[in-house]
């Protein structure tokens, strides 16, 4: 039952990912990206990561995809002519094939060899807000503060870059 649910979700995630790459229009790509992110959020819930799933919806599906849609709206986003670089296509296909085979081979080897100390236990607190918050404000306090500074710098930088008279 759980496996069936996972397989349906996996198919949806891969379909969304393919949609991003294949779509002719950037708007369709952005919507496929939204599908991919939403399915990923559901997968996070099945992996006992409630807080991260909610943040995934808010940050990725909410903020990032909407930002992409705004930019598509601003600059049109449509590219006349071929959507795919003609010469790079074969190279990219070979490179992706090699990468995929390597990744699957590595995973297969790990499957055969057996993963080290696979406890397969429960995540503390089921990944709830309380558990994550306690870890963030004690062990990971410095990275947390640095992340806030990073976001502030990015915000100022984005405003400075996108202003009309800056270029």
């Amino acid at each position: 039952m759980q496996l069936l649910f996972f397989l349906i979700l996996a198919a949806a995630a891969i379909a969304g990912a393919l949609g991003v790459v294949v779509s002719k229009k950037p708007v369709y790509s952005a919507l496929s990206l939204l599908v991919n992110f939403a399915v990923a959020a559901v997968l996070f819930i099945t992996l006992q990561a409630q807080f991260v799933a909610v943040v995934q919806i808010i940050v990725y599906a909410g903020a990032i995809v909407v930002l992409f849609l705004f930019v598509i709206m601003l600059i049109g986003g449509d590219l006349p002519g071929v959507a795919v670089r003609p010469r790079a296509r074969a190279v990219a296909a070979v490179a992706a094939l090699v990468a995929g085979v390597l990744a699957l081979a590595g995973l297969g080897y790990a499957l055969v060899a057996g993963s080290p100390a696979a406890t397969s236990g429960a995540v503390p607190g089921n990944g709830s807000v309380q558990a994550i918050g306690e870890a963030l404000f004690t062990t990971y306090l410095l990275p947390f503060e640095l992340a806030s500074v990073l976001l502030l710098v990015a915000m100022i930088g984005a405003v400075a870059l996108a202003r009309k008279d800056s270029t």
Partner: protein
Amino acid sequence: MSQVPTEYYLILSAIIFVIGALGVLMRRNALIIFMCVEMMLNAVNLSLIALAREFGQLTGQIVVFFVMAVAAAEVAVGLAILIAYVRHRDTIDIDEINLLRG
């Protein structure tokens, strides 16, 4: 309770990552390349969370939290650069973007 093996999640993550890499290599539209990069980051997040469950620790989820913060910053700055470039040159075709070429 029988749960889905972690390896399945890792394989799904690898597949999505490779699709994203394919998009980065093949597409010419800078916006879509950006989306593919986001998708690759998300695939890595999926594997991190799967491994967090595998080892019964919270660290993987914390790392995903920081990856999301950095991804949000990256998207904001990247799209701002893209808008500035479009205003300057009126194209987002990465084969045409060669302002820094000597």
